[in-house]
């Protein structure tokens, strides 16, 4: 599990007068389960992109368990993310034409780390999320099943942090419930830090902490500590 410290973080885009994300300080403890909420354009996606190393901030530090990922090259950030971050997205981003287990293993295979043990773990993970046909093609699955495959993929390499971006937004109530529970269970089992961007109140309610973003600033914290922008 990983802890996160953010210092003086700013992310600007050319042509925009003010930064789209501005965080003076944020600390998330290892193993903590955090919800990130906010309206459209509040900076949630930018926050996720910056903390996962998908995007380099304009300034500031993003330190994961002592490693400032903003100093990494793009290739090093890719490698670090592959090793430490499990990503779950609203649109699943599964690859049609491949089976469930092939989708779970794809990033590991592309990173050339998919050995027999990891393959066995992929099969086990699919079972643990309630999928018993690992060779079923992705395009024949329901959306709920797809998201479960995406969760299995995210935790395959036992990441220190699981970051989920609206994981239940495109699912019906029942499937959303299952996926939310799975995320919490798996994060609990692997001891991963969990950061979930969501509008799903039931899911948010199960998490330890709630950060609310507005206009690129953290305007509220679930533990009652208001973070000044």
């Amino acid at each position, binding site marked *: 599990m990983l802890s996160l410290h953010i210092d003086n973080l700013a992310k600007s885009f050319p042509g925009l007068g003010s930064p789209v994300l501005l965080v003076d300080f944020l600390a998330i403890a290892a193993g903590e389960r955090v919800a990130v909420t906010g309206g459209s354009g509040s900076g949630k996606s930018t926050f996720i992109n910056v903390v996962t190393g998908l*995007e380099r901030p304009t300034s500031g530090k993003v330190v994961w368990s002592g490693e400032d990922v903003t100093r990494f090259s*793009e290739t090093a950030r890719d*490698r670090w993310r*592959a090793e430490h971050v499990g990503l779950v997205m609203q649109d699943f981003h599964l*690859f049609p034409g491949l089976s469930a287990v092939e989708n779970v293993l794809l990033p590991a295979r592309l990173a050339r780390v998919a050995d027999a043990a990891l393959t066995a773990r992929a099969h086990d993970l699919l079972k643990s999320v309630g999928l018993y046909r690992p060779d079923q093609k992705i395009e024949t699955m329901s959306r709920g099943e797809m998201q479960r495959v995406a969760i299995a*993929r995210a935790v395959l390499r036992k990441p220190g942090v699981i970051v989920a971006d609206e994981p239940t937004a495109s699912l019906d109530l029942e499937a959303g419930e299952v996926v939310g529970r799975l995320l919490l269970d798996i994060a609990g089992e692997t001891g991963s830090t969990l950061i979930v961007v969501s509008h799903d109140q039931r899911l948010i309610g199960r998490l330890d902490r709630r950060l609310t973003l507005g206009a690129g600033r953290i305007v509220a914290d679930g533990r009652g500590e208001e973070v000044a922008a």
Partner: protein
Amino acid sequence: MIRFILADLRRLWAGAVVVVLLVALATALGVTVTLQERALRLGSARAADKFDLVIGAAGSETQLVLSSIFLQPAPLPLMPGEVLAKLSKDPRVTWVAPVGFGDSFAGYPLVGTTRALIGSTVSGFAAGRMFEREGEAVIGAAVNLSVGAEIKPMHGTAQMGGETHAGVVYHVTGKLPPTGTPWDRAILVPIQAVWHVHGLGHDHEHEEEEHHEGEALQVTQAAAADEHGHTPLEATREHAGDLRHEGEAAEAGGHDEHADEDHDHHGTIDADASIDENFAADAPGLPAVLVKPKTIADAYKLRQEYRNGNTLAVFPGEVLTSLYATLGDARMVLSAVAAGSQGLVAAALVLVTVTHIGQRRRQIGALRAFGAPRLSVFAIVWLELFLLVAVGIGLGFLTGLAAARLIADAFTVRSGIILPVGFTGEDWRMALILLGAAAVLSAVPAILAYRQSPAAALRA
């Protein structure tokens, strides 16, 4: 990675098939032009290989070679028969053979020649034996007749609507092995028979011929292409016959010289007569003789000696070289067209793939987000396009080979010349160059994917 690429190609199979076909067609066009042109050079060179020197009447060198060696039906002026007699006695000559043509049977040209030519250019017989009598014939390997078959020759070709020589029948005595030359489609008969069929060279008419032959040989090409639709040789010979008959008519006194003009001047053959291949100075006129000089020096001397105002001596190779130059120019034009089409296809492919990469930005961004290294993303995009283009190039080479073989087969059926269609080191080098170009081409969208920010791609 390969599984991912194959799955992607299966998903986008229609587009993939179009890309492969486009590349294959553009490649096949170039390959066909190259293979065909090379095969034509090789095939024609091999066909002319056994004939060192051709001598004919002054005129077109190209036509002389095309008619005498490639047996293309075309008008040739005649040269005096004394040339043949002189060459027969020339110590610098291993063998000399006259060729006379103009008749055909069932679409196959009849070529009057000598046993010396057949014996010297072909090794043995596939069936039967050499002709020994005036009414006997030897057929090439591609002639669809058997030993013992009867041949009733006709003037010119079937397409020209020539008439059959009444009462003239040859019997096939032998079939030659394949040579891969137009002579495979030829029916070879004694030159003596050809002369006799056309009313020339009869012993009892020697005096008449001596008297009129010179006049006959003066018949111009324009006159030769007469109103009967005969080839100039036939026409020339017939005019020679006309002159002879006119002479006879004059001697007979009062005989209508036009009454038998159309048909009676055609001679006939004595099928059982023995063949005399000792040619005297009074031999009838000839379109060409094929000469085998003893040495290279002799060949050059003979060529020089017989390149005078009345006769023309050529090495088939020199004529072919000039034809190849023309062929090379045509090939350059066709190759430029093929290269242009390949360039257009390449440009279209870059456009299509760059657009495709734009459409797949989210997928590529997701791959990066889930931890796929940038190099893997580059490799996926590069390999996917390279595979398509490489398959297209491979298919194009096979299609080009198949097309060239089909064209070559059709050409062989028509001409008898076997065109050796096949790949050489030059083609493999071209394949490597094309694959290299494909590798570079495929790198364009791959670099775009490599440089793409995953966050920006996911936002798209």
